[in-house]
């Protein structure tokens, strides 16, 4: 029991650290990617190539004066960013970061908890994430914050539906909600053991899920909650110092987790092609698989940034039209087609 707790504690600690580290360096990567796409250099002053920039930014956020508006609801004002951060970090629990490691004959899974409800847990956490924004926006007692919060929550709830529907087609296909099992079903192998990644079977579902992931993370082209021209800073107008940092940080963590979920669901997770044909031992494959998973995750984080510096934002009515009139019917059609094909092929 003690060793079990110790092992889980170590896994949780490592994943927690990695998540925060990647989120921190996402801010740096974002600025670098933006710069490169605009033929600039980006931050290069703090350390070689500016790699200490996240530290400098973090230090700046902590040192800044902390302002809590007099008319705000103090408890909820502080609670808002906490919930945002908490829910962002919670989703990492069920992502299979790798296959099992075998040490001294004991098998250690690199997934913190392989829940039976797997993907539903992610949805649950994401749906709670709205509260961080809503509570923060309302507690600020500022009309711009409130409007930003309302925009954010309406957007997130709307796209959650399409996201859930796009996943259902995948679940019909795989027959399981557990992310660990979905990963196993995509394992690459030889002969009869060969499995394609889910994106091959579910291209439409993947596109819908990706678009919804952009909307859920409040990323461009769906970054309407923050809008300088209309809403000042959106829901975090009144926030300063590390509380603002928490909101921004949570956004990057969400991006990382979304990338991980996309990689796991549609791109084979920790599996990579020919993994069972190389004749390597189990632990090596696991380590290589984890590296493959992170490569996929980094690609998707890059893709998030890539899109951000390419596509202009939608107008709010366009956003709602896209969500409700395009993505939801498409997702339903996708479910229908998937079900039909499965009935025809599997009898």
């Amino acid at each position: 029991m003690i060793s079990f707790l110790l092992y889980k504690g170590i896994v949780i600690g490592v994943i927690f650290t990695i998540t925060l580290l990647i989120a921190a360096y996402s801010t740096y990567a974002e600025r670098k990617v933006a710069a490169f796409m605009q033929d600039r250099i980006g931050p290069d002053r703090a350390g070689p190539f500016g790699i200490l920039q996240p530290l400098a930014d973090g230090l700046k956020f902590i040192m800044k004066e902390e302002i809590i508006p007099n008319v705000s609801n103090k408890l909820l004002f502080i609670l808002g960013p906490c919930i945002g951060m908490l829910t962002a970090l919670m989703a990492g629990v069920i992502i299979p970061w790798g296959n099992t490691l075998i040490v001294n004959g004991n098998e250690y899974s690199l997934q913190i908890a392989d829940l039976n409800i797997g993907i539903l847990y992610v949805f649950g956490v994401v749906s709670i994430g709205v509260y961080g924004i809503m509570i923060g926006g309302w507690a600020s007692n500022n009309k711009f914050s409130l409007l930003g919060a309302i925009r954010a929550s309406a957007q997130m709830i709307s796209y959650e539906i399409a996201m859930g529907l796009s996943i259902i087609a995948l679940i019909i296909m795989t027959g399981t909600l557990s992310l660990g099992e979905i990963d196993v079903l995509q394992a690459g192998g030889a002969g009869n053991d060969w499995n394609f990644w889910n994106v091959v079977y579910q291209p439409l579902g993947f596109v819908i899920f990706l678009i919804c992931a952009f909307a859920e993370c409040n990323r461009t082209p769906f970054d309407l909650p923050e809008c300088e021209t209309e809403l000042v800073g959106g829901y975090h107008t009144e926030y300063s110092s590390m509380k603002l940092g928490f909101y921004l940080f949570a956004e990057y963590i969400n991006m990382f987790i979304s990338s991980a979920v996309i990689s796991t669901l549609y791109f084979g997770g920790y599996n990579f092609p020919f993994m069972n044909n190389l004749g390597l031992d189990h632990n090596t494959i696991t380590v290589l698989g984890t590296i493959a998973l992170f490569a996929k995750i980094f690609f998707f984080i890059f893709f998030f940034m890539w899109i951000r510096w390419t596509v202009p934002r939608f107008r709010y009515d366009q956003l709602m039209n896209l969500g409700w009139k395009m993505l939801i019917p498409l997702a339903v059609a996708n479910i229908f087609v998937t079900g039909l094909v499965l009935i025809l092929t599997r009898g």
Partner: protein
Amino acid sequence: MLTDRSKVVVKKEMTLTERLYLPAIVGGILITIRHFFRKSATIRYPEKKREISDIWRGQHVLKRDDEGAERCTACGLCAVACPAEAITMVAAERKPGEEKLYREEKYASTYEINMLRCIFCGLCEEACPKEAIFLTDRIIETDYTRKGFVFGKDKLVEPVAERVDVTKRQTKDVLDFKKHKEYSHNK
């Protein structure tokens, strides 16, 4: 019609591929990824400076003559010529025993250029009859206060030890040009 490039706006129905929106996004991301691998246009400033022209007009210098005496006689022509009215000065009479310091009997006891007003046009240099003021290729340092941008004689007059080279601006052509007062901008 100013140019022959004007186009008649036709608001036609979008085709299916256009309405799908995704092909347009793919086109967009291909453009941005091409820029991603392109050479950046940035020059890392303090370490690396952009090449500037030989006759770059930067921070002014008040020249001394060969003996180290200030050339300026506070005639005020530069201040008159200045379109931005950036130059102010106070004239004073040379005392006996100061011949080593000031070349002529009259000199500028204070001479100030407000670098925030200055437009670096070089008219002061052109107006100067005594070859006293020149613009150099030095760039004005930044400062936190407005006061810091009002350069007095302490910053403008060249130190005796380290003379500022202005030969690039004092070419023979320039000197010849200066002899012909009829070409001058300020009459």
